[in-house]
């Protein structure tokens, strides 16, 4: 990490620390009841007291989120590839995709739970639906966005449509795929939790819903903490992978 990046990371952690400390102090000084807002120390103690329960719930939710993300990414990328290779069908397919995207998933989630039960399947479907669209749009624009000088060169070599795709469009779309992943990965967590909230036999969403209906706020907040941390770690992992896979962009930015 370069010096400015390290400094900005320090600033970020500093802001988080100040936020948590003033939260803690506020709760203690103003005697806020625990059923309205528990203090961070209380929340962390709740986490520490129930490690296996939270570990199980987190694994389930993360598993749903990641499988849903994987399916959403695969479907989005596959359709983007298809639309690039068969450009005639783009308008129709994109209309359908936008129609799907505009349908409120919060309304569909309970229906899926009703139809498919309390298992993991509806959660995975919701997560996939939620993560699919950013990938489709980003990868599609990455695949289509090729500068004219490159196309001229490939045409001068008499490259086939497939060769232009394989050697030019596909690698060129990688930065766009990562941009999409960085949007979709946090969405995947939200999708899994929202789906669980509408009815599930386990998972962080289920834990949160139970805690909420019992006004057991430390339990609710503990799950929120885990989700926030998981989202951040996921994002950092993706940023790291991006730096490796799309090395030409990150390096040329530094130069």
């Amino acid at each position, binding site marked *: 990490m370069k010096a400015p990046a390290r400094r900005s990371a320090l600033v970020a952690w500093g802001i988080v620390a100040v936020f948590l400390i003033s939260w803690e102090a506020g709760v203690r000084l103003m005697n806020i009841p625990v059923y309205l807002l528990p203090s961070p120390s209380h929340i962390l103690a709740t986490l520490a007291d129930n490690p296996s329960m939270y570990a199980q719930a987190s694994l389930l939710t993360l598993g749903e989120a990641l499988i849903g993300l994987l399916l959403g990414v695969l479907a989005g990328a596959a359709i983007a590839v298809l639309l690039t290779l068969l450009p005639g069908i783009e308008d129709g397919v994109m209309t359908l995709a936008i129609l799907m995207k505009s349908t409120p998933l919060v309304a569909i989630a309970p229906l899926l739970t009703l139809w498919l039960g309390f298992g993991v399947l509806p959660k995975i479907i919701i997560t996939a639906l939620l993560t699919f669209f950013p990938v489709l749009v980003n990868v599609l624009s990455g695949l289509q966005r090729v500068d004219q*000088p490159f196309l001229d*060169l490939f045409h001068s070599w*008499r490259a086939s449509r497939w060769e232009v795709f394989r050697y030019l469009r596909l690698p060129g779309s*990688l930065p766009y795929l990562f941009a999409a992943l960085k949007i979709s990965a946090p969405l995947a967590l939200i999708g899994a939790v929202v789906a669980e909230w509408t009815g599930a036999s386990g998972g962080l969403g289920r834990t949160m819903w139970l805690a909420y209906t019992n006004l057991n706020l430390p339990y609710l907040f503990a799950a929120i903490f885990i989700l926030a941390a998981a989202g951040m770690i996921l994002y950092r992992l993706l940023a790291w992978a991006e730096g490796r896979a799309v090395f*030409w962009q990150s390096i*040329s930015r530094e130069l």
Partner: protein
Amino acid sequence: MRVEVSALNHTYPGKPPRPALAGLDFSIPSGQFVALIGPSGCGKSTLLRLAANLLRPTGGSIRIDGRTPAEINAARQVAWMAQSPALLPWLTARGNVALAQRFINGQNGGLPIEDALQRVGLGDIQAAYPFTLSGGMQQRLALARLLIQPAGLWLMDEPFAALDEITRERLALELLDLWQPLHPTVLWVTHHIHEALRLADRVLVLSAAPGRLVADLLLELPRPRDESDPRFQAALSQLRTCLAQAQGEAQR
């Protein structure tokens, strides 16, 4: 390769349609280095794109060794180089050249990758990525990519226009050294009078759009060209006059 252009017209569709070339007629013997010069928008790049089969003419014809640009393109006998080096950022210097090789599949006549990289002075940095190279080195790499193609015709659209003057002059001289042993026909688009005179056997001057041929100068001066040579100076002033005329016709 011999290039014959007859009654060549090109008009870009649109409202109103934009005529780019109007009735060009000329022929280029095999191995000649021809500079195309003219006011901006005179259709010199259009002419090059027509020869490269990147465009189809709306009238007239281009024949390269008696065949159409499409046939020549299909036989991969034309090499193309433009102002943008168009290097793939995810491939190394060598990888970029090797990619071009993939498309000429086994045809003889071009240089081996190793030789091509050596010739342009990039033999030692084959593993470098394009974004670590300077603009001049990027164009050298594009030249190496050109050299491996067994092409009898080089179509070059202001390849050094984006470079600084010093690099540009040096690369132009290096290009001549690379060109002389292989001796393909070259169509070189430029808007740089000195560059045209330093490089070319012949300069074709086009008028402002729609481009017509207003002058055809043969330069029978030895290379490397000596700019203090009175014949060079005479050609320079002649070319300046032609270009002024070409501009003037546009304004009328």
